[in-house]
């Protein structure tokens, strides 16, 4: 289909700034909480569980009901349909029904005349609990064999035998923490009741269709009775893929029950307590290798804390397994993945979706092999890269688009890795307190939802008789620039300036049954669907012109100077007017499903990904060996986005993803107490990077190449892959710690995030070895 069309072929794309940028900088961009509020609107708050695991013996809500401003209080018994806000497994309750399974779980719902009144009242409940045994940590869940699903195994060859035969072997383990999304706009939903049982929801969600379906189910209605609208989110990062449903369902319940509009605008602390996070992992490994550092065998154990319910944990942990090879050929390998059920908030999607955890595991193993042999870690990485004859992933997919070797080589030169490594060694020799480290780590990230059926998208293009165009698709805008990318695709089909294209809010009444905007797939899927919709209209216009002017279809050309039909030339607006009078439909839907992918989950074999996005980063860091403080001094990135749809937007994704990854591995620490309460539930205690944490030297270059697969404009997805470039920071920090005892041939023990406390401990432990 696409190859017939010149507009589809790779075009140099203008880098228009984000379509909402002028609205962002003037404060005029409207988020879900920013519209006018109806006078009778209700504000909501949840009463939350104080226990990690308990049976609710009795609830006395009389003080809540009597509190100033309270209009109504709801419990699970008030839910007309399914008490379920889960994406897949049916195990996330809107309101707890008899039992609570984590601290902060919603138990009852207060509707009041102000947000403050609702929140104050929600604290007045008297609830008698019978505490039940609670699993709070990975170790406790392992001991209790508490799992959300059976342990998964992905394997090739005979790892045990290869380990036994390897000249060298190492056993290691380390922990990595989770991460709070810390989207700046908290969870929010506004439900407005319509006639005849209909509900409209303005909601900050990456997954409008799922919210629609869950709300319909919860209210015992049809999906056609519920409309979900999202113009933009104030950040999401995966945290509004499944987690928005709880708040939307609460608002919908109250709107339906009271007949009044209801808004749930979640307080930041409540948001951090109640919503899921990136999964914390414990990694264990046995690796066999030769004297050069070739990995011959790997037995890898990935154990993750999934929280109290299933959520998306199966797919997230699958992706950790898929990325445990990163760019490396692992001949005999066994990857075992334990998905542990704990009485903590259910962990969920977060940029990278398990990929970062799997990738950090293998990168640390590379560092361990290098430290053991006394080799430069980059040398060990390079000899283990996929290459001809050694190009099949542990899940059986051939790595057909491998550019990692060339990309790493170029970055190694451009960032002067070798000269700087030598200079850093000299610096460290002369500096007793401050030690530096440098590391180059690569990224290979698989693009597609690994749940194959999710790889589909729809779009609706409306061309008006004045030549203006409205575009709507299933993708949501969370800041990543999806809307401007798709608008550019449509503008290019008609060869009109982008300001002719009006970007509209994502709505379930325009495009149905959409997938979440996730897995970096937004532009790939929706861009192609919008392209198909626009092409349908263009084909009609082409035929109309050929008929009207008596020329061949091939004599019709859409150009920036106007539409040419044989010897005639008219503006796009003139054409649209003419076509309307000629009774030609100017509206069309488009659809796209990613071809060629299939995956057998039972065997963990197949082709889960359409293609891979690549990148690499060099990070230089310094640590203070007396306090454990560190600073990222310099970062150089070379990243692969294929033929970009929007260069500025893509570079923004790369930089933002990197810094977010840096935060995950350094300053962002989630701490739960021994009762399962999250202690770091506000920006006072949970520390995402600030402006000064961005390295003073930071360069971002784009790899010059195109996608081997016929994606839209031969581009590649960019949302998630750059996040994992920040693994270079962690690797560099490890090397800086190692510099306190340069003769020790062992990798310093270091868990993530590398807080000052962990770095100081690592320094003293490494010195003592």
């Amino acid at each position, binding site marked *: 289909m696409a190859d017939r069309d010149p507009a589809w072929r790779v075009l140099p794309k203008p880098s228009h700034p984000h379509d909402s940028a002028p609205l962002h900088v003037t404060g005029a961009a409207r988020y879900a*909480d920013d519209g006018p509020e109806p006078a009778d609107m209700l504000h909501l708050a949840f009463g939350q569980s104080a226990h990690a695991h308990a049976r609710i013996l009795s609830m006395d809500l009389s003080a809540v009901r009597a509190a100033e401003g309270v209009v109504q209080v709801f419990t699970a018994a008030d839910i007309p349909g399914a008490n379920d806000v889960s994406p897949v497994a049916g195990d996330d309750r809107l309101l707890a029904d008899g039992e609570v399974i984590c601290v902060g779980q919603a138990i009852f719902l207060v509707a009041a005349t102000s947000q403050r009144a609702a929140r104050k009242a929600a604290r007045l409940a008297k609830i008698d609990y019978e505490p039940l045994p609670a699993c709070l940590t990975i170790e406790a869940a392992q001991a209790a064999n508490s799992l959300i699903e059976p342990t998964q195994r992905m394997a090739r060859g005979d790892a045990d035998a290869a380990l036994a035969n390897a000249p060298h072997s190492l056993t290691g383990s380390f922990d990595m923490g989770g991460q709070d999304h810390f989207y700046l706009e908290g969870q929010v939903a506004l439900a407005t009741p319509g006639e005849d049982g209909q509900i409209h929801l303005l909601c900050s969600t990456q997954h409008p269709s799922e919210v629609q379906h869950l709300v319909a189910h919860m209210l015992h209605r049809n999906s056609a009775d519920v409309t979900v609208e999202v113009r933009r989110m104030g950040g999401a990062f995966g945290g509004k893929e499944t987690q928005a449903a709880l708040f939307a369902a609460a608002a919908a319940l109250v709107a339906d029950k009271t007949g009044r509009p209801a808004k749930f605008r979640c307080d930041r602390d409540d948001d951090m307590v109640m919503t899921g996070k990136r999964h914390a992992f414990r990694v264990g490994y046995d690796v066999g290798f030769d004297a050069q550092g070739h990995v011959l065998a790997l037995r890898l154990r990935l154990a993750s804390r999934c929280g109290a319910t299933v959520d998306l944990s199966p797919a997230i942990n699958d992706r950790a397994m898929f990325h445990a090879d990163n760019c490396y050929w692992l001949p005999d390998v066994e990857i075992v993945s334990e998905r542990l059920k704990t009485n903590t908030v259910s962990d969920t999607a977060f940029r990278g979706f398990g990929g970062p955890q799997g990738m950090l595991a293998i990168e640390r193993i590379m560092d361990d092999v290098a430290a053991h042999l006394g080799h430069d870690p980059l040398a060990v990485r390079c000899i283990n890269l996929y290459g001809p004859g050694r190009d099949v992933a542990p899940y059986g997919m051939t790595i057909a688009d491998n550019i990692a070797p060339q990309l790493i080589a170029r970055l190694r030169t451009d960032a002067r890795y070798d000269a700087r490594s030598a200079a850093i060694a000299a610096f460290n020799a002369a500096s007793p307190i401050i030690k530096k480290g440098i590391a180059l780590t690569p990224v290979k990230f698989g693009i597609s939802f690994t749940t194959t059926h999710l790889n589909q998208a729809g779009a609706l293009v409306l061309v008006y008789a004045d030549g203006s165009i409205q575009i709507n698709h299933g993708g949501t805008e969370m800041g990543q620039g999806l809307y401007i990318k798709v608008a550019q695709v449509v503008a290019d089909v008609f060869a009109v300036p982008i300001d002719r294209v009006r970007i509209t809010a994502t709505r379930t009444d325009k495009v149905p049954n959409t997938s979440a905007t996730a897995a970096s797939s937004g532009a790939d899927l929706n861009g192609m669907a919008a392209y198909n919709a626009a092409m349908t209209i263009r084909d009609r216009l082409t035929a109309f012109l050929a008929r009207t002017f008596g020329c061949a279809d091939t004599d019709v050309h859409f150009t920036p100077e106007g539409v040419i039909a044989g010897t005639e030339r008219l503006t796009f607006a003139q054409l649209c007017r003419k076509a309307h009078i000629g009774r030609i439909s100017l509206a069309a839907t488009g659809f796209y499903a990613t071809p060629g992918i299939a995956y057998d989950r039972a065997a963990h074999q197949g082709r889960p990904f359409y293609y891979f996005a690549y990148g690499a980063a060099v990070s230089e860091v310094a640590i203070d060996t007396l306090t454990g403080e560190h600073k990222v001094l310099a970062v150089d990135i070379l990243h692969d986005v294929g033929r970009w749809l929007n260069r500025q937007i893509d570079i923004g994704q790369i*930089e933002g993803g990197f810094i977010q990854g840096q935060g995950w591995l350094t300053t962002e620490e989630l701490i739960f107490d021994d009762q399962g309460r999250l202690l770091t539930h506000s920006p006072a205690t949970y520390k995402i990077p600030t402006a000064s*944490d961005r390295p003073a030297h930071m360069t971002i270059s784009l790899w010059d190449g195109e996608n081997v697969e016929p994606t839209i404009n031969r581009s590649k997805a960019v949302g998630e892959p750059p996040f994992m470039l920040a693994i270079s920071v962690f690797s560099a920090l490890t090397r800086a710690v190692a510099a306190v005892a340069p003769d020790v041939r062992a990798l310093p023990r270091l868990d993530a995030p590398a807080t000052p406390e962990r770095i100081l401990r690592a320094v003293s432990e490494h010195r003592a070895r």
Partner: protein
Amino acid sequence: MSVHFLLDGDLVEIANVDPTATLLDHLRYTMRRTGTKEGCAEGDCGACTVLVGDLEGDTIQWRAVNACILFLPMLDGRALLTVESLAPDGALNPLQACMAANGSSQCGFCTPGFVMSLYGRCVGASGHDLPVADVLAGNLCRCTGYGPILAAGDATGPLERDDSATVAVLKALRDKPAASGHHGDRRWFAPRSSAALADLLADYRDARMVAGATDVGLWVTKGLRSIDTLIFLGDIAELQAIDESPAGVRLGAGVRYADAHAAFARLHPDLGELTRRIGGLQVRNAGTVGGNIANGSPIGDGPPAFIALGAELTLRSRDGRRTMTLEDYFLDYGKQDRRPWEFVESLWIPRPGPDAIIHIAKLSRRFDSDISAVCGAIHLTVDEGMISAARIAFGGMAATPRRAPLCEAALVGQPFTLATMEQAAAALRADYAPLSDVRGSAAYRLDAAANLLLRLWHREQGQAVSVLSLDAVHG
């Protein structure tokens, strides 16, 4: 009670003000100026940054502050700019135009706050004469990685503002009585002199004093508490004086940290650097030196440094004044040597002598806008290689900011050598029995605090001891 302020040059009168209603809620849900965002409602993210202008002589001194923890009556008699003020006709100013063009916004939710912080820098707002990254330390962005925002800040020069009409109206407002009043049972007082404050405290013994509201604001937004009687200190000019002399610095208790920054840096560069790292700029533009002491935090960040420098505190009441060393003020956790009707009037910090060797350090998970795990100050006097005096104080190591007598004893009379510092570091471990909490374990606190003594010694030998002052090898 009612409140008057100037918004975009227009006088706004709000009647029936609840004294603890926040500016942010009023902007968003009453005035429907929704460009100012709520990110955290506790002054940590900067999405609600606005500029508040005080009349100073014939000019307006603008300050970036967090609207989420600013009580509406605190705005009385002042001027306000929100993000909507900057492009009233839709035409972007040069800063906004640069940010819109260069990718400074992705999701855009934090963007208005960044615009306001940077705009403050463009119009010479107080405390904004810092590098862009420091000006932005109180603004969190989760999308961009900050690069384009920093670039926009660096690329945009001073912007003209004509505040003359605003000056005239504010002068007229100044002649009105202060905005004292009540809302139901809740009272708000805004005295204009220390004497009036002393009288109020004598009359209302349950009153809560509030200056920048960087602490009390959270009682309302997060604690959901009601406070019956509030006395606002921000209109008392006497409390805002900074008197620098060769002997030292005397600061009124109402001096904002941002305004004290330069004087502190002149006392010692480490004290300047510590001040830079107290909160974000919006917090330093609101939070006061006196409030930081009076609220009795076990951490500080100011008090440990002030104690090590030998500071004295003056309390005042209707009965008169009392002066004490700062360490004597802190009695126990949450307990200070202040009677309910007394207030902190001023702080005296002697200027360190030429023989002083000082190291002040704040250790936290993140450099900017974080609360310390350990905040320490070491102040040695060294005569011909011998330590003749030592004042060591730490926050985060005990229930209050406290001196380290055993460590001091291990130093005084000893030669200034690594061996002495190692002995002192060992002694320090007996001075404190810190707790483990989210900011650090007891073991980390002890290890890192002890190591600061070694760090000082290595610094004096000319070694690099701070990762913040390093350049990359990359050239």
